[in-house]
């Protein structure tokens, strides 16, 4: 009798709760392969970003393998009007998993959330465009 009292609600719960498990599905990046295996990136992407951040900030090393700008260039999507969507917008690459796991990102208070929007550039800033990594990637065939 006692056990029924416990098992009955459990079985009822099972009947109600049995459903698809929500799992985040971040959009795929542009390239064929990320700079590290996916299994590694899922665990340690922040370690790479932190390392790269200190190398770049303090030692002026601007290699692109683990740079946030490079992440953006692969993982930002464009909307119907051809403009980039912020990578931390709901459903976009970064936000999808971070919202799921309750992790707040402290990157995008400061860092740009899209590559340079090509349409917003004036002719004056051609020089800057030329050196812009993300721009370079997007004009590649």
């Amino acid at each position, binding site marked *: 009798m*006692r*056990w029924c*009292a*416990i098992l009955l609600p459990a079985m009822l719960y*099972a009947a109600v*709760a*049995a*459903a*698809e*498990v*929500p*799992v*985040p599905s971040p959009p795929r990046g542009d390239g064929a392969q990320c700079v590290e295996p996916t*299994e590694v990136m*899922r*665990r*340690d992407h922040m*370690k790479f970003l932190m390392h790269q951040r200190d190398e770049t900030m303090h030692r002026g090393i601007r290699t692109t393998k683990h740079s946030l700008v490079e992440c953006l260039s692969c993982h930002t999507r464009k909307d119907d009007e051809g403009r980039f969507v912020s990578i931390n917008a709901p459903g976009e690459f970064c936000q999808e*998993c971070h*919202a*799921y*796991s*309750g*992790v*707040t990102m402290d990157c995008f208070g400061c860092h740009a959330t899209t590559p340079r929007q090509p349409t917003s550039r004036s002719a004056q800033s051609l020089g800057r465009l030329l050196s812009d990594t993300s721009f370079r990637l997007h004009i590649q065939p």
Partner: protein
Amino acid sequence: MSVLSVIYALIFYAATLIMVAGLAVKIWQYARTPAPLKIPTTPAPTTAAGVGARMFREVVFFESLFKGSKWSWLFGWLFHFGLLVVLVRHLRYFTEPLWWISALVQDIGVYMGFAMLLGLAGLLVRRSVVDRLRYISAPSDYLMLGLLIAIGGSGLLMKYVTRTDIVAVKAFFLGLMRFDWQPLPTDAMLLIHLTLVAALMIIFPFSKLLHAPGLFFSPTRNQADDPREHRHVAPWAAKLDATRAPGN
């Protein structure tokens, strides 16, 4: 689905069942245990509302422990408060979408993890250094402290050293709750952490950790000091009472 995932799924079903059922049995037992006399520790409140307030202070601030031993109170409260916040933080693995309270404590929760360990360390030192405490300490007392320290330690190690795929961990637990099993990442530290937690859940209904529900059934705390205002009749005594002649 790996064998490991299946094993852990079964372990957690078993652990949950044992903990819930065990607690239910214990609470049922506590609730039926007679309290034939009014024995609140005085000074005690004389009204039900007063008892509620006293119980609140007892549960939230550990009032009687504070009056009894300042050091145990300090470390004990530090541990319990830390544990509370850490548990709320861990709700993120079981709720989708995230509950606001869990989102709120995400940042502070990490530091509370350290506070929890500090409190446990204090309690352990106290138990092993103070003579009269060491004398009354049984192996199970150390086991509980050790288990909690190992759980906290492995959790923090996962946060700072060997990380795991927490998105997959969440999917695993949501899967358990929805009977739609998902694979569990096979990181050693995660498996250690989860094994210890399952062990704690299984031990819980057989251990001194029962003070958590037990506190609410403690007659020295949950009774109003009103024997002059109301005659106290325990439920089992009421039957006897009814057979007695009125006016007697």
